[in-house]
Structure formats: C-alpha cells, structure tokens
C-alpha cells in the first residue's frame, strides 16, 4: 500500500464526496487513548487522519494546540511512541491514510534515515512539516525517497511564483491555510477562500484540503464548497482536552465528528 492518499482522494472524487480530515495531537489527552481515538474518528467518517507530533515551540499554532502539545510532551510522547501507535492502528485499518503534522526539529534529531524507514514500516503515508517550505524541502529528501508524501502548505500570502514552485513539489494534496494567522483563530472569509482554492485548482489536479478556522458543521460545509477536503483541528483538540478517560475521549471524538460528516454528505448530495 503505497498510494493510500491518492486512492482516498480518487474514491472521494468518484463518489462526489468531500473529504473530512480531523487533526489530533498524538498522545493527548491520554497517551493510551490515541489509537482508539483514531479508530473512532474513522468510524465517525474521517477520510484521512492528521496526527500532530508535539513540539515545544510550535510557532504556527494557537493556544489550544500549544497546550495539547505541552501536555503530550509532559507525558513523554515522542516519535518512537507515535510510530508504534500508527503501526497498531494499521493492524486493523489498512486503508485510512495517516499524515504526521509537526515541526522539523524532532525529526532532525530522530534522524532522517531512521525516521523514513520506521515511519514507512509503521504505515505513515505523508508528512506536513510546518516549518519546511519548498526552499528547504531538500532537508527531508530521505522521507520522499522512502515514499512518504510531502504535503505543503499554501497560504493567502503565497505568490504566483511560489505557488508554481509548490505545485511542482507537492504530493498527495496541498493544504490551503484559510487565513494569515495561527491555528484556532476564527477569521474565516468564505468568499476569499473559495476564490483562492479555485485558483489553486486551476493549475493542476492535485487535491486541495482547507484548514484553519474550520470548527463545526457549518464552517466545514461552507469551506467544502470549493475544497476537496476540510481539516478540523483546534475545535476537536479543545473538546478532547476535557475528556477524563480513554472511553470518554473516544465518545467525544465520535460525537464531534459524526454530525460534521453528515452535514458534508448532505451538502454534497444537494
């Protein structure tokens, strides 16, 4: 299985559905609940899972994800454990793509060759490394060589020249950041997002997922009008933070995502 991401977007397209991509910080709120949360998200309609690799200095993240990262780090969550969770998830789910999202230093320190080989073996499909723009993608060449997809961000500030360079290197899908800001903020402008996403899609057929500012069924439906998929992070992470045990974390994840799935499918059918 080397093409999970491509296959998933092809299926979505074929069935005229929009992709739903939840983001959760690995190991938060309860390390041992991560795999169960992932399965619950899939059961509630997730098409792809973004698993956050916690980092001490997340410059693109707002307080919700900062704090979830701090909690996970305090509980000793690192790459080795995260890859073990991915492998455990893969044992019973061979098709849902998993993208690790995070920052470069933990991977650099882990070692690129070691990370590439182990992530591949565990069943990781792609990485989105927030502080690696196209200019620095040479740093993670080893990962690409191992078949791990490089997901790049496109922002409202991205120029035509940069967009062309990103298109050339992009794999899997591109992640459009809906506003200039940090995760968890709420200044979504649906008209502008639509204009930008349409523009990105004109230049090729790589799928576009939209994230930042999507927090519930209504915002997901709005954004999905033009996008191939929507990413929901902070709103889910904030709910999960309140869960007291693994069991309640699983039901929080399911109850949060299921209505969004339903709304997306209704809107797509309409």
């Amino acid at each position, binding site marked *: 299985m080397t093409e999970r991401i491509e296959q998933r977007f092809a299926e979505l397209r074929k069935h005229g559905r929009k992709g739903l991509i939840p983001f959760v910080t690995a190991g938060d709120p309860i390390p041992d609940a991560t795999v169960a949360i992932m399965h619950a998200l899939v059961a509630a309609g997730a098409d792809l899972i973004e698993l956050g690799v916690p*980092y*001490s*200095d*997340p*410059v*693109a993240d*707002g*307080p919700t994800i*900062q*704090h979830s990262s*701090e909690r996970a*780090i305090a509980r000793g969550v*690192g*790459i080795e454990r995260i890859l073990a969770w991915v492998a455990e998830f893969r044992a019973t789910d061979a098709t849902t793509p998993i993208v690790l999202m995070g*920052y*470069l*230093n*933990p*991977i*650099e*320190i*882990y070692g690129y060759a070691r990370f590439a080989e182990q992530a591949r073996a565990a069943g990781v499909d792609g990485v989105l490394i*927030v*502080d*690696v*723009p196209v*200019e*620095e993608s040479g740093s993670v060449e080893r990962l690409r060589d191992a078949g791990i997809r490089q997901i*790049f*961000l*496109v*922002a*409202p*500030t*991205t*120029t035509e020249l*940069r967009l062309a360079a*990103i298109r050339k290197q992009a794999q899997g899908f591109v992640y459009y*950041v809906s506003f*200039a*800001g*940090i995760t968890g*903020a709420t200044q979504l402008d649906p008209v502008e997002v639509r204009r930008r996403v349409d523009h990105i899609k004109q230049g090729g057929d790589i799928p576009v997922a939209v994230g930042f500012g999507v927090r519930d069924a209504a915002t997901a439906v709005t954004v999905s009008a033009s996008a191939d998929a929507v990413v929901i992070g902070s709103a889910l992470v904030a709910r999960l933070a309140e869960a007291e045990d693994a069991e309640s974390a699983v039901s929080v994840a399911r109850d949060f995502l299921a209505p969004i799935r339903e709304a997306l499918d209704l809107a797509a059918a309409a």
Partner: protein
Amino acid sequence: MNKPIPVSDFHAYPDVHGRFADYGGIYMPETLMPPLEELTAAYLALRDDPEFIAEFERDLKHYVGRPSPIYHAERLSKKIGGAQILLKREDLNHTGAHKINNTIGQALVARRMGKRRIIAETGAGQHGVATATVCARFGLDCIVYMGAVDIERQKINVFRMKLLGAEVVPVVSGSKTLKDALNEAMRDWVTNVADTFYIIGTVAGPHPYPMMVRDFNAVVGREARAQMLEQYGRLPDVLTACVGGGSNAIGLFHAFLNDREVAMVGAEAAGEGIETGRHAASLAAGRRGVLHGNRTYVICDDQGQITETHSISAGLDYPGVGPEHAFLKDSGRASYVGITDDEAMAAFHELARTEGILAALESSHAIAQAIKLARSMPKDQLILCNLSGRGDKDVQTIAAHEGITL
C-alpha cells in the same frame, strides 16, 4: 567535532538562500515566506542605497553617540600580568548596549517599507528597550513580547519600555522566557503580516535576519579595526565577545574575519556548569538542529524538544545561536567556550574595582574570557574585548545573587 571547512572569503556569506554553508536558511511556515522574501528584497536594495546608509550613519553618530571608544584597561591588565585587555565600549551607546545599532537599522527599513506597527521579542528587556526607544524616536507603534517569567525578573526594563510608550505583552506559553517570546512574536507577525514589521533582536531567526542584524552591528568591528590601526598601529591578537544569539559577537568579529592572524573566541553562558545541564552554551554543548527559522546549534533533548536554559544573565539565556556562529565554529575560524555564572560574577567585580566600569552580566562573560586568555599570553599582545553593555540594569540581580537586600 566536524572537520574544519576551508573558506576563502568569509565575507561571501550567506548565499542567496541565507545559508552559511550548512547553517541558516528559512525554516518558516508558508504564510511568512512571502513577507520574508519582500523584506529580503527591500533590505538588499537599501543596503546599497547611499541615502539609506547616510541616514543610518547620521543616527549612529548623533543619536547613539558613535563611534564608541576603545579603552585600554590598564590597571586590570597590569593586575593580571599578561596580555593587554582593550575594551570596545558599546556600553557607552545610548540605551547602554550594542542593541540600538540594530534597532535603528531595522526601524529605518520598516519606515522605508511603510510599516508602522513594530513588534519585538525580549528576554532581559534590553532589546525591548532599544526597540521601544527607536519607535519613540521614529513615531512607530511598538508591541514587545516578553515571557511572564522574565517580566517578573526584569521589572525595571518593563517599566522603561512603558515609559517609552511601548505595550509589553506577557507570554505565558512554554517556558515563559525568551524563546517563547520569540514564538509569540512570530504568531503576531503571521496574523498581522500586512502592516507589521518584526524587529528581531539578535542574529537568529530566518533569513534575512541573521544577515541584516549582523550588517547593522558590523559597525562595531569596522570602527574597532580602524581604531586599532590608528591607536596601536596593528590589529589585535584576539577578539572576545559574549554570545547569546550572537549579535554583539558577530558585530565585532565580522570586519576581522578575513584577517586570519586575528583569533576569535566567543564566550557562551555555562550557567551553573555545562556538566550540570543548567547552561545556555548552544555551540559549546548543544547539537545541530533547527530553531526559529534557521539551522544551527540548539539545546534540546533526545526527542528534539527545545529545553530550558540557564544563565545568570537573561540576555544569554537562549537555547539557539545565530547560524553564522555555527558556521564559524565548524570552519574553525572562531572558537566558543563556556563561562559559568560564578566566573562572570568574579569578572564583573574585577572590572568594577580596577577600572570603575560596571559591565552588563552578559558582557562580564566576555571579560572573564579575556582575563583567562590574558593570563597565558605575553604582555605585548592585545586582546580586544567587546564590552557589549553596561551593568546598571543588573544591579538588582547581582544584589539578589549575593544575598543582599536593597
């Protein structure tokens, strides 16, 4: 240790990607890449613009009070009995440190770019004060991010910034210190890119900051080189400077980089001792990594998480270091050593008693290194030490360290 890289011209760095050989670069989220490109283009044009240069130099002269003198610390040198210690007196600048060289330069760039909202991070508050100062001078809005822990430690500088009209925003994430203030300033910038200019306080951050901040501080070394030739008819044998992010050190070193006969030693904060783990010596005891937009030496754990650092001087308490220093270390052109809190304190007192100069605790690390070197060098050799700032801001810290209530 890495094998030294042969380098023919140290002034040829960084390249167009902001790389100093393996170090530097632009490791930043996509949203900030276009503004960074815009800043690089604007700065490269201004760097060669005679009008801009004249503007900068005018302010350095009339507002900062440059050139700063080179002073022969004769009684100190005699007492040590070795090489002669010369001090480049950046402590005599307006606001009391080298930091103002950079903030004037960047504020002028901001003004040329039409950005009226200035943000900055600060640890000890020195860069915050220097930024608030130039914002008052140029009529720009100023917001300074400062870790909640540092706000508690540096109340006087917080008040100084407020007197100058700046807004000081406490940062409560992470370790609530300088690195987190930098993160928060980045988050502000990402959110307000259209009208905001970020004045970084040292030669760290993504390209073009390590280059731009170096260029603005390089006036220190240019002046010093000319002063040495004029006053002593020759170049110094060794340069010493303290290294936090590395701006005063690269400021002094840069003009001398191609003078191979001049040795260079950076003094990092060894805190309670490198072996205790409570230090901030990124080059002497850290490892290669990526922090705040550039590849450099960082202090982090085996999971790649940036760890808390320690130094008695808040200005050296940073887990990364400017990428050009990482390059100078690997190339063998400069060496970097750790100076402990106690050694810096002893040097502070030595300089105060022999020369009547209260040095900043940061600068006291460089003095301590100069004293160490002088001991083993003959009397006719010259050590030029960057006295990067004055110690008035530190008297409370020193009193507390020595158990004295004021």
